[in-house]
């Protein structure tokens, strides 16, 4: 299988026009084969992008991108449930399921499985594939040996595996909104304060060390995952899809770097140096892959 | 979420508390008694060591902050040791647990929850937190309590000793 790049869903709350223009740029310029789209983090944000949704999807499709609709990762309230139902119950859309409620609505139709649904082992993979899963994006904390074991099983199941290779790492979800909490508000009365931070709100230790990134109910790493140096190893293990998670700046040049390495037009070393020059400033990490603390960088 | 009490120890003689009740005692005079206690407990509860795992090989400094002595415990299954040292002497250790004598007694008598003591900062730990968690969990699995066992080592005097423990534990 020819390996290719995918673009994960925008996880942050960007101004609607910014969001639209970003996807126009993806359609026009970005060397990604598949684009995941849809609100994964907070059901309150979803309506903000509704008016541009159709326009963005048709532009992406016209540009030859495969468009996959990602479902909400944490589903509790009535609004959450309605959002998942609207996306996942539709026969026309191809879905990336991010929780069990999406699987319920899918009822065995072919679909993708997102990184928020825990798929840590061969048996989970087999069960999901027997019930319609065609591709699975692995949890970000899986180390190399477990990824290889999964790839072994996936090959026999005709299932493609995807691994996030760039961007901040989604680490946790909560029922509580930590953006609202920082602004003395609650989730219900949040006034969408998360839109002040297009790349999330950095959380530092009291000693001043940047540690995590707050994105509403989601907690992400502060460091930026970068597996450009492991791409060839991952391909050899049988991984065929490589996910870039969008940031507000530098995503296009990042995708170009990764594409160049996939096409063997650039070495991993060159790419690492180039990626370090992009405008998005966060230290790189790849610890999870090496079975080390996730924030570490093993060169 | 971990089961550990932990926070640094406070050294030196804090509240006078129980120290006032006890006559000054030379450390060497305590040694035969301590050796007897640790050998007796170890003999009675071999399963403690299996539960402690690697922590058997650590050195635990037990620091009753209101007494003039500290105790060094080496729970080696083959050669368990408990030694008293004068407070102020440098004693090498992997982990130190400190609190008032009564707090420590209540803990080894399973009368109170050590996590709660830690939350209230009555108990503190420095050093190898994992070792103290293993020791705490192993002790907590004994059907009798460590305090009962210590009292039992006094043979014919076990009941008066147990009564002294009960008296001490009731003190506010």
């Amino acid at each position, binding site marked *: 299988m020819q390996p290719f790049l995918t673009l994960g869903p925008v996880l942050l709350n960007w101004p609607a026009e910014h969001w639209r223009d970003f996807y126009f740029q993806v359609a026009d310029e970005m060397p990604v084969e598949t684009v995941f789209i849809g609100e994964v983090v907070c059901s309150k944000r979803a309506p903000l992008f509704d008016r541009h949704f159709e326009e963005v999807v048709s532009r992406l499709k016209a540009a030859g991108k495969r468009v996959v609709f990602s479902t909400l990762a944490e589903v509790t309230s009535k609004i959450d449930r309605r959002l998942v139902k609207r996306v996942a119950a539709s026969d026309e859309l191809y879905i990336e399921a991010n929780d069990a409620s999406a699987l*319920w609505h899918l009822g065995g139709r072919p679909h993708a499985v997102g990184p928020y649904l825990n798929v840590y082992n*061969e048996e989970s993979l087999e069960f999901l594939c027997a019930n319609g899963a065609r591709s699975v994006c692995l949890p970000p904390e*899986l180390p190399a040996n477990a990824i290889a074991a999964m790839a072994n099983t996936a090959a026999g199941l005709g299932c493609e595996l995807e691994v996030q290779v760039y961007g901040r790492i989604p680490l946790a979800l909560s029922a509580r909104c930590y953006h609202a909490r920082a602004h003395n508000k609650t989730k219900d009365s949040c006034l969408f304060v998360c839109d002040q931070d297009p790349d999330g709100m950095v959380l530092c230790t*009291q000693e001043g060390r940047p540690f995590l990134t707050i994105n509403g109910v989601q*907690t992400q790493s502060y460091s930026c995952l970068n597996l450009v140096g492991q791409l060839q190893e991952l391909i050899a293990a049988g991984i065929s899809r490589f996910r870039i998670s969008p940031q507000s700046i530098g995503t296009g040049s990042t995708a170009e770097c990764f594409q160049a390495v996939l096409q063997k037009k650039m070495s991993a070393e060159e790419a690492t140096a180039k990626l370090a020059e992009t405008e998005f400033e966060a230290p790189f990490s790849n610890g999870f892959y090496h079975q080390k603390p996730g924030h570490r960088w093993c060169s | *979420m971990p089961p550990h009490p932990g*926070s640094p120890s406070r050294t030196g003689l804090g509240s006078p508390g129980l120290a006032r009740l006890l006559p000054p005692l030379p450390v060497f005079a305590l040694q035969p008694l301590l050796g007897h206690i640790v050998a007796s407990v170890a003999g009675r509860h071999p399963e403690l060591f299996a539960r402690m795992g690697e922590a058997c090989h650590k050195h635990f400094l037990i620091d009753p902050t209101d007494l003039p002595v500290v105790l060094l415990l080496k729970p080696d299954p083959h050669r368990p040791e408990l030694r008293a040292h004068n407070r102020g002497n440098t004693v090498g250790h992997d982990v130190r647990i400190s609190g008032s004598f009564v707090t420590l007694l209540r803990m080894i008598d399973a009368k109170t929850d050590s996590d709660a003591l830690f939350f209230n900062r009555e108990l503190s730990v420095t050093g190898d937190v994992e070792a103290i968690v293993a020791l705490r*969990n192993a002790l*907590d699995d004994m059907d009798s309590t460590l305090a009962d066992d210590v009292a039992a080592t006094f043979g014919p005097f076990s009941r008066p000793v147990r009564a002294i423990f009960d008296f001490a534990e009731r003190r506010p």
Partner: protein
Amino acid sequence: MTGLQKPELVCPAGTPAGLRTAVDAGADAVYCGLKGPTNARNFPGLNFTVAEMAEGVAYAHDKGAKVLAAINSFPTAGRTDIWKAAIDDAVSIGVDAVIAADIGAGAYLARTHPAQRFHLSVQAGASSVEAINYYCRSFGIKRVVLPRILTVAEIAELHSEIECEIEAFIFGNIGMMAEGRCLLTSYVTGQSTNMDGVCSPASHVHYAEDADQNLTTRLGEFAIDCVSCGQTTGYPTICKGRYDTAPKKGYYAFEEPVSLNLTKLLPDLMRAGVTALKIEGRQRSRAYVRAVVSAFRQAVDAYHAGADPDISDLLALTEGGKETQGAFGSKTWR
């Protein structure tokens, strides 16, 4: 309150002595785990060998109590045989239910031991009707342990729409992150909550105190809290620490060190149709188990008999000496 079915009191046991303590204090069921990474409380000195769990089952059954085996972490590719063996062992010693979270573990349990009662662990994070019914249909789960993020009103509504029993937490530590979906420990220490069953492993916790008795708690390389002299503290977990963000400094960015205490909501939970009430704390001591289980035994019995129990003395056992009704009381918690 009378006329309603009396809920089952489900209590924690970290050790065999803890199990006997919980049973003697009035637990209807005790949950416990085997040593190793197969359960979400894989701490040093804690948990059961297979032989110890078998003895625990005999002890509990003799006194009319059940034993539920928590095998609720996520089996990792390449070493799933550890979890399969745990499931096989638990079934063979006659536990009353297996508590599991993973889809693969569920598939294995349903396929290999179809007669074994299966409870869906809180670690599965099934917080909606559709998610719960997905697990009911897929694996025939008999009970769901609900995530600690629903209000009592939402639980009541859920009850009427799902195909299995409900178990709800009523007391103990309250993690802030969605269960089964938190990689914070893994990010900081390299040991994983999901794969290794550890949250804030003790081996990575370090305490340091300055001359003014200000206490800094460190997990791995990161300072997760700084407590001044005289202040109470909580578990050294990332989600109970204090941090700085642009709008606020030195604050509990996720949650304060508090414990869940739903004593006052017990009648509402019973009316909402909850089958089992769960007490957290397999990592806590026998003293905690004895105190909390006895208190809740009395409270549940009293409410069931239509009386008003005295429930004032549990506060000392809570984290930081503070308690909360968490999400259960009101949506403003979110």
